[in-house]
């Protein structure tokens, strides 16, 4: 896990009634240098979140006192746009849509591994601003969104549409860990876990084209999590 810049630690609020899960998240992110606060029920969570002193909120969907969706609704009503990741036990799959509609920024189904939560938190903290750029650049890699052309340095790279879509997503999030689930959800609009290593195959194909033999590898695998595009050469 990436350690955040010590001068301004990321302020994370965890609203979770299950003590064990809460402890796990708090200790994991405190260790990584986050400034973590915890609330065990809806009303306290809302009070803390309402202060606006947080960069990101991780909240359980089902909370005692005040439901997660209600807390979220109240926050958005008060014009607080702090990114919120909702968590929910499996079996509440159709809740996902409701969570996102209520103003949630991401939705995680329990149980999840910490690396998944960390990647999603990082993705939200570094959410790419809507840009009018028509050319994306990461290191020597350049993508022309209008001409739909990709080049690495002087080398022109011929991509299939599906590879173009994947690279587009990667290039807007350089240096970020992107998990397989995130890629499936956001690139292919696919909301369940595929049994096969589909994502790896896609990334592998793209990698062969981006990282030619002898070139410094730009698409990296992150142990236990997913992939990352780095500005390498």
């Amino acid at each position, binding site marked *: 896990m990436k350690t955040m810049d010590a001068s301004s630690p990321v302020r994370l609020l965890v609203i979770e009634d299950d003590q064990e899960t809460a402890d796990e998240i708090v200790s994991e992110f405190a260790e990584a240098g986050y400034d973590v606060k915890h609330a065990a029920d809806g009303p306290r969570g809302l009070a803390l979140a309402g202060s606006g002193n947080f960069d990101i909120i991780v909240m359980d969907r089902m909370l005692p006192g005040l439901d997660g969706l209600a807390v979220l609704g109240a926050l958005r009503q008060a014009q607080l746009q702090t990114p919120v990741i909702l968590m929910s036990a499996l079996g509440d799959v159709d809740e996902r849509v409701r969570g996102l509609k209520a103003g949630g920024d991401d939705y995680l189904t329990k149980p999840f591994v910490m690396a998944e939560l960390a990647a999603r938190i990082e993705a939200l903290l570094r959410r790419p601003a809507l840009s009018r750029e028509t050319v994306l650049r990461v290191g020597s890699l350049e993508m022309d969104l209008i001409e739909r052309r990709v080049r690495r340095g002087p080398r022109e790279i011929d991509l299939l549409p599906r590879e173009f879509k994947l690279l587009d997503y990667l290039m807007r999030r350089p240096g970020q860990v992107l998990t397989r689930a995130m890629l499936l959800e956001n690139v292919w609009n*696919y909301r369940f876990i595929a*049994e096969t290593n589909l994502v790896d*195959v896609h990334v592998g*194909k793209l990698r062969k084209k981006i990282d030619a033999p002898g070139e410094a590898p730009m698409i990296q695998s992150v142990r236990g999590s997913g992939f990352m595009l780095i500005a390498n050469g």
Partner: protein
Amino acid sequence: MSPPLFRLPLFRLTLLYSALFACSTLLLFAFIYWQTAVVETQRVDGQLLHDAMFLSRLPAADLRGTIDNRVMPDFRRVAHAGLFGADGARLAGNLPMLPAGMKFDGSIRRTDVPDAHLTIRAVGLSLPDGTRLVLGRNVESLDNLQLVVVHALELGLGPALLLALGAGALASRRTRKQLQTVHETAERIMRGDLRERLPTHGGGDDLDRLAISVNHMLDEIARLMDDMKAIGDNIAHDLRTPLTRVRARLERARDSASTTEEWHEMVDRAVAGLDQALRLITALLRIGEIEGGRRRAAFEPVALDQIAREIAELYEPFAEEKEVAFALALDPVRSISGDRDLLSELISNLVGNAIKFTPAGGSVCLSLSDGIEGPVLQVADTGPGIPPEQRDLVFKRFYRSDASRSVEGYGLGLSLVDAIAKLHGFKVVIGDNHPGCVFTLRGTLPP
């Protein structure tokens, strides 16, 4: 503790029927009584009046003779007659004196014959010469008849009612006994003895038929429980395999890893094993969730061709890597009502399986066309195929044919397909592709 007899529903019904029976009997007897008392009396009265009129029109000279000769000896009619002078003296006939309270206006009344202890119906007429004519008829037989009717009612209704009540009590006691048996058996079953069955005696009555269907239900429950147990065993077994492997890897890492690199690699493989176990559990929970049917509420129009195209895009590189030719043949189809995510999971499972089980050099074709009842989606492969006798089995949880045992998979993909198809009211059938197999999914259009 069984309730008292009168509180049993069947016995209450008996009481009700008995009451109805008594009412109808009473009605019947009332009719008979009315027939004898009223109608018969009217007939008698009519004849009396007729005779009186006839006599009154006879000349006075003939009258006495007629009374003596014709009226009195007419025993069949049991007639009484008398002609009295204006002073009440008897002139002719067999009535000793004027009956008390007679009126001579042609009205008929009931009166006693003086000195004879007889009750008759009598009519009195004043004749033009001042004499008074009285004609009467014995109504004792009528009275007797009425008495017989009342007696019959008393004698018949009582025993009949007792009989009905007795039969009702007997029937309800028998039913109560049967119900008691059912109750006891049900309690034994609830205590966990699922092999127990309700007794049936082949009588074909309602209770017997109920017992038979309850027994069928119990058979079905027992079968489901066996299935559950088999599933539980399968889960345990399928979890033990990856977990044992994880354990072995971790042990090896502890004992033999000499470099951090090596150690990392071994731990990674252990984590992959745990992921496999987790995926298995997730898939099971998802099947349970889908079979719960809750998601039907979120159905919306779905374009299958678009989903098929997306799935194809997702799986093309996978097929390429396995050197399996992947073909797509999509006709435009009408949209159906469904859950987009689940349907794409369904198609994804079929396509993923097809590619997984098809050897290098083979081909997989995903096609979509518009049928009569709705869109028809087919996934055909050139893999090992599925023998006809196994085609229903593969949709069961954890079933894996021998041919597929060597390929990675959890035997749950097709159960998931089945659950999703059922949720949508779609049909999935497996056919032969010579070689390989064809999965055909028949969608239905929204009503």
